[in-house]
């Protein structure tokens, strides 16, 4: 009981309350603009379409808590899809094709790690480079065509339901989010991620193996992208090298809306999941309301800027609240953070 009370108490001033409110408000608005919004089928649509983002954004949350960045996920998504589609369409058994997607994602994740950790390139530039490399690779592999002729069981994962009720993509997304949440909150590795994001030099001096941690983070980001590729490719039923353009944007918006600060050191998976849902609800709601698709771009762009501004304002507010009330015993001057 005490732990529940501490849990609830800690939620006050929790940036996620704001995010949850936003989601609720959006749901309310859209349920009024379209009668088809608040249906079970549509609920499944929204959560299913957010599953790809959730899978990747969960991994990217850790990267961003550690003050890293991965802009390459959209392209890595595409190249992983086409690799597995190409193999599947030429007779490779499906499990092997899936494995190939994971391997491709991992490979590009390690490429990012090599640039960032090995060559000390800044994450923005490094992952921007990988973004182009991967996209080019996707087009080369498919000769710019969209791969079809996939086996009949290809679409099972993306369009099927577990026990006939819950779509597989949602199950996969939930498992991935759970995995990263456990990693972040219950392991030493997770604590190290927060520590490095909070003060990399201090973490290093305290004995954290910082390079190894970054390698693991970028590798996991790539791996998660490969997994998302399996799910997405299966849903689309084709190997399209054009997919995922702008996907990294959706991922980053989800992470930031979820409360992860660009300054690093803070963030939670639950927030990211909410952020992904907000993005999905926004798209879905605008669609159902008959708004032109391009307005969705505008809406997402505005959402990102608003999220960053809110993050900065609440961060200043939170930090000043922390340093304004230091604990000092009688006879001892309080010296906040000096």
């Amino acid at each position, binding site marked *: 009981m005490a732990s529940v009370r501490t849990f609830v108490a800690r939620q006050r001033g929790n940036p996620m309350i704001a995010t949850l409110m936003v989601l609720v408000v959006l749901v309310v608005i859209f349920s009024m603009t379209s009668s088809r919004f608040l249906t079970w089928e549509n609920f499944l649509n929204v959560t299913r379409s957010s599953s790809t983002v959730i899978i990747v954004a969960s991994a990217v949350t850790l990267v961003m808590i550690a003050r890293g960045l991965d802009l390459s996920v959209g392209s890595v998504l595409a190249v992983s899809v086409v690799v597995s589609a190409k193999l599947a369409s030429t007779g490779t058994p499906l499990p092997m094709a899936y494995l190939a997607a994971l391997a491709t994602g991992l490979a590009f994740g390690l490429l990012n790690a090599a640039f960032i950790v090995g060559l000390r390139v800044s994450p923005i530039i490094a992952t921007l480079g990988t973004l182009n490399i991967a996209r080019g690779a996707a087009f080369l592999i498919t000769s710019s065509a969209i791969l079809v002729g996939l086996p009949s069981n290809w679409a099972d994962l993306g369009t099927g339901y577990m026990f006939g009720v819950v779509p597989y993509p949602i199950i996969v997304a939930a498992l991935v989010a759970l995995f990263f949440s456990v990693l972040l909150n219950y392991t030493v590795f997770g604590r190290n991620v927060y520590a490095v994001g909070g003060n990399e030099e201090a973490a290093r001096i305290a004995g954290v193996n910082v390079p190894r941690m970054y390698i693991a983070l970028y590798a996991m980001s790539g791996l998660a992208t490969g997994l998302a590729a399996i799910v997405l490719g299966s849903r689309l039923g084709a190997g399209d090298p054009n997919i995922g353009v702008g996907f990294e944007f959706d991922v980053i918006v989800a992470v930031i809306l979820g409360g992860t600060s660009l300054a690093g050191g803070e963030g939670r998976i639950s927030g990211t999941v909410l952020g992904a849902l907000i993005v999905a609800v926004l798209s879905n709601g605008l669609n159902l309301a008959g708004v032109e698709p391009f307005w969705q771009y505008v809406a997402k762009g505005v959402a990102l800027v608003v999220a960053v501004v809110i993050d900065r304002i609440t961060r200043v507010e939170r930090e000043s609240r922390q340093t304004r009330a230091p604990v000092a015993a009688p006879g001892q001057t309080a010296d*906040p953070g000096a």
Partner: protein
Amino acid sequence: MTDTSSALGAPSTAAEPLIAINGISKRFPGVQALDDVSIDIRAGEVHCWIGENGAGKSTLIKVLAGIVAPETGTISMEGYPVSIRTPNDALRLGMAFILQELTVVESLSVAENITLGHEARRGPFFNVPAARERAAKLMESVGFGHVDVKARVGSLTKAEQQGVMIARALSLDARAIFMDEATAALDEAEVKRLFDVIRRLITTGRSVVFVSHRLEEVLHLADHVTVFKDGRVAASVRNRDISAKDLIRWMVGREIASAFPPRTRTPGEVVLEARKISTRSIQGVSLTARRGEIVGLGGLVGSGRSEVLRALYGLDPVHEGEIIVSGRRVAMPSIRRAMTSRIALVPEDRRSQGIIAKRSVEENTTISWAQLGQGRAWRGESKRIALRMIDELGIRTRGPQQSVATLSGGNQQKVLVGRCLALEPGILLLDEPTRGVDVGAKAEIYQLIDDLARRGMAVILVTSELPELLGLADRILVMREGRLVGELAGGAREEEVIAVAMGQRESLDVA
């Protein structure tokens, strides 16, 4: 404008001083950096400022440079009160500052650096030939005429870069030039040339304020010497008939507070031995540390004390020499190796190198411990360790989950000590453990350090506060310019430490 008839100890009384500093005080949290300081800086003179670490010289320079605002006092130039609120004000009043961290733009040329901010123009364009001509003339006048004004400043030697800064000061029509530790990176020939330049500068009626730790230089160069101590002016005299001994006596000579635990420990066997270790910043340093012993590293700022600790902990790469822990050689010192050899470090700057502000007391305390492969029940153990440290070290906090940013400096320092203790180290390296900590917490930390040594730890302590060094350490190893130059027993006097630190005297047993 130089006065030639003043007696020792009486200030010269020519026309109005170029700069008159009157009653300047400045307080930082926990320390009175300047206390009613009054100094006259006269034109056409070399005025040397000298004093220990933290005596107030640098703070006063920052006040004159418009970087720090004093609480009381006035500054006048040639009799007229002036207000210096920003570096720009200082610039416009004709003051130039050449500090130890040279502020040249390495990617630009000599001519561009000299005229930066007040470039010669032809319409909207940069008048290159005019700039070059002016730069060449100025470099000639400061004795660096051989330097190509088109050369990239980054490619010049430190001495030449300094010449560029002096030329720039002249270009800005500076009347008073402040040099802080200008000779630190120069060799003998370059120092001689710098002194010639300085003497040439003062013949034009300018003033040069020269801050230095090198007593010989001060006695050689100065027309007037001001000695700082504990934020006050201990002496301000003409450079006539004064000796190094006088300077040292003015610099120290205070009572040592007995806030220190009595030394009743007997050191045991040697646990740490460093043999002629060299890094980028230190050369051939050898030392030993025993169980139950507190070894102090003394010396001036920049002498390499922290760098010795960094080398022992594996933070800086060690080119030469060996580190031996409990009889076993540590190959390729790294942070990981240090931790497994049971060496722990409390770093110098707790804000940038120690504390992870956003995280809790618990996380900050157990982060190092957590790296050493824990079992499945690690989170419970982590909480227990944090609670134990809070209790044992007397960390004042609402609980282990409190954010460490809200703790006072002294308590944050205790958290860092707790982080080390959780590793159960045999060797504890402390770098400025009471910096920015108030008096009450200081006493607690002193007791803590003594207790730890009593428990069998070997402690190596770096502190810029001489009383602290002398009060805690059993032995004091004195560093100077990257080398170990002397060893003194714990009961030494402050004057002895300063003397060895400044190269005035070699003590008999060099470690």
